[in-house]
């Protein structure tokens, strides 16, 4: 339980740590002991060397995700341009074949600013929260958010530039996002305006795709510039309050990425590609609390780690259902 709370606290900015002995299971301790046997260590090193010689590169989940982001945002665009009334509106609020949908973060801002509970908005928010609770909260980020896709391309560029020394990654404190989340809620309440919407790249990009380009896109371009040259995934990692709202939504989601300690070689390929690497700290030698473990609330279920892991130590699972199947 303590370990679960620690993982939750990591979403709000807590530093990753090793589990206390009391937080680990006997099985995991035994497995660690086994993995540290001299012959096991040489075997592991040998297998890692083999991997590096014949790298297995998978882009399965990445391409599925890109397709998902593009198709969902295209549905919005097509619905308007060809008047098919499938998903009307933008990502802040919409109607999916007539049913209200509302982004929980935008809805929260509006209700705090307006100081009234609007029934349609509540219906829309509850629908969306239930939906994203099932698939895992921040799955919104990596499977729907159009800014995520742009930021992912910016990230690829950043990694390439960093490799040849033209860019450097300057990390920020992850607690910044929690503070901004609170500040923007407070600002909405105090000023009576949806202050965050003014700098919300998700809303700006979504509206620009549907209703045509705006000058506000310059802000999005500036953000992407920061992400390319100064700080890898700056907005998604350290700022975006929408991400935290969805993270809370999916804190105990059924859909999870599951970590299998027995298969893991602890080489860290997964942490290199992850948007939120702190959730994968458990893949370090001696950091797992159990032989099987769910990644945690901040995970966007993007599947990059699953693609990256040469040992299939990480995979998608549905909580409870994996035992039935």
């Amino acid at each position, binding site marked *: 339980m303590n370990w679960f709370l620690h993982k939750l606290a990591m979403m709000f900015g807590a530093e990753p740590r090793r589990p206390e002995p009391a937080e680990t299971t006997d099985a995991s301790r035994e497995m660690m002991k086994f993995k540290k046997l001299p012959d096991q260590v040489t075997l592991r090193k040998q297998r890692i060397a083999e991997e590096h010689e014949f790298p297995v590169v998978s882009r399965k989940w990445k391409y599925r995700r890109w397709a998902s982001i593009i198709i969902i945002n295209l549905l919005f665009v097509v619905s308007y341009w060809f008047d098919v009334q499938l998903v009307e509106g933008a990502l802040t609020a919409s109607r999916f074949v007539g049913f209200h949908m509302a982004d929980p973060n935008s809805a929260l801002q509006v209700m705090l600013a307006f100081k009234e509970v609007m029934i349609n908005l509540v219906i829309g928010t509850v629908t969306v929260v239930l939906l994203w609770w099932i698939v895992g909260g921040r799955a919104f980020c990596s499977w729907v958010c159009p800014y995520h896709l742009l930021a992912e391309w910016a990230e690829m560029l950043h990694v390439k530039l960093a490799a040849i020394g033209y860019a450097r990654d300057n990390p920020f404190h992850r607690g910044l996002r929690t503070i901004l989340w609170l500040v923007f809620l407070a*600002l909405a309440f105090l000023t009576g305006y949806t202050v965050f919407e003014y700098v919300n790249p998700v809303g*700006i990009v979504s509206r620009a795709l549907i*209703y045509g380009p705006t000058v506000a896109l310059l802000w999005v371009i500036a953000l992407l510039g920061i992400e390319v040259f100064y700080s890898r995934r700056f907005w998604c990692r350290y700022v975006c309050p929408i991400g935290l709202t969805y993270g809370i939504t999916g804190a105990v989601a059924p859909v999870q990425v599951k970590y299998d300690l027995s298969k893991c070689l602890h080489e860290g390929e997964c942490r290199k590609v992850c948007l939120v690497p702190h959730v994968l700290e458990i893949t370090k030698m001696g950091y797992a609390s159990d032989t099987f473990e769910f990644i945690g609330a901040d995970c966007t279920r993007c599947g990059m780690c699953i693609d990256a892991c040469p040992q299939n130590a990480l995979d998608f699972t549905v909580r409870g259902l994996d035992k039935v199947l």
Partner: protein
Amino acid sequence: MTELPEKPDEAVAKPAKPRLTRRELERRRMLLRSLGAGVAVVGLSLVGWYPVARQLFDRLRPPGALSEREFLSACIKCGQCVQVCPVEAIRLADGEEGFGLGAPYIDGRAQACDFSCDAVQCVLACPTGALTHEIARKEEVRMGVARLARPDACLAMKGQGLKGLARGDLFKGLHRYPDIDRWNPIRVADHPYDLELCDLCVRECPIKGAISLKPMSEDPADKRRMPVVADACVGCGACEMMCPAEPAAIVVDAKVLKERQA
């Protein structure tokens, strides 16, 4: 004064302080950077307050809009109202309008709201009630009020007629002409006129009794007439869009102007 002797001691003690390790320095830098980024993001978001506080714009909001302040609070900036409008009169504001970014407005001169939808569709589409669901008929709408801003330019006041197109053949605006097609709006550029005396603001007004032409003298031979706006005016902008004078002789003042005066 008595504290002075202590100072040299402190100066001696200072170099003895352990220097920060590289790691601690980096962490301190990271925390400062984070603070800076936080202040920058919040500061930038508050820039949006400036155009709103300084009232740099007075937009005609779609039918049923709450008072400007409440409207900007309640609007979730999704554009569902834009999507249902049959004449595409509603547009979304850009960044220069601050907190109004993404909020809908109508530019009457470019495309007025002519109630082609018959039952204020934008109000029904609004998920937040920023366009209040309390109105159900076009007569209840109050977006603004028409005003004869340039009487000198008004053709009716000059006693002139109108032959040809109201706004030229390049004008893209749509209007519903009940005599031509009760249901579908057509391009204003596809509807030429031949009038003894220009009365477009009255002729094309979608609201009964909102505007009328009054004689300017008691002489029956005097053709000149003056448009007079009545209380029934809803501020839809149809008269402004139709007005053949350039710029329009009649304009719609947004509700927000009246709110500011009050």
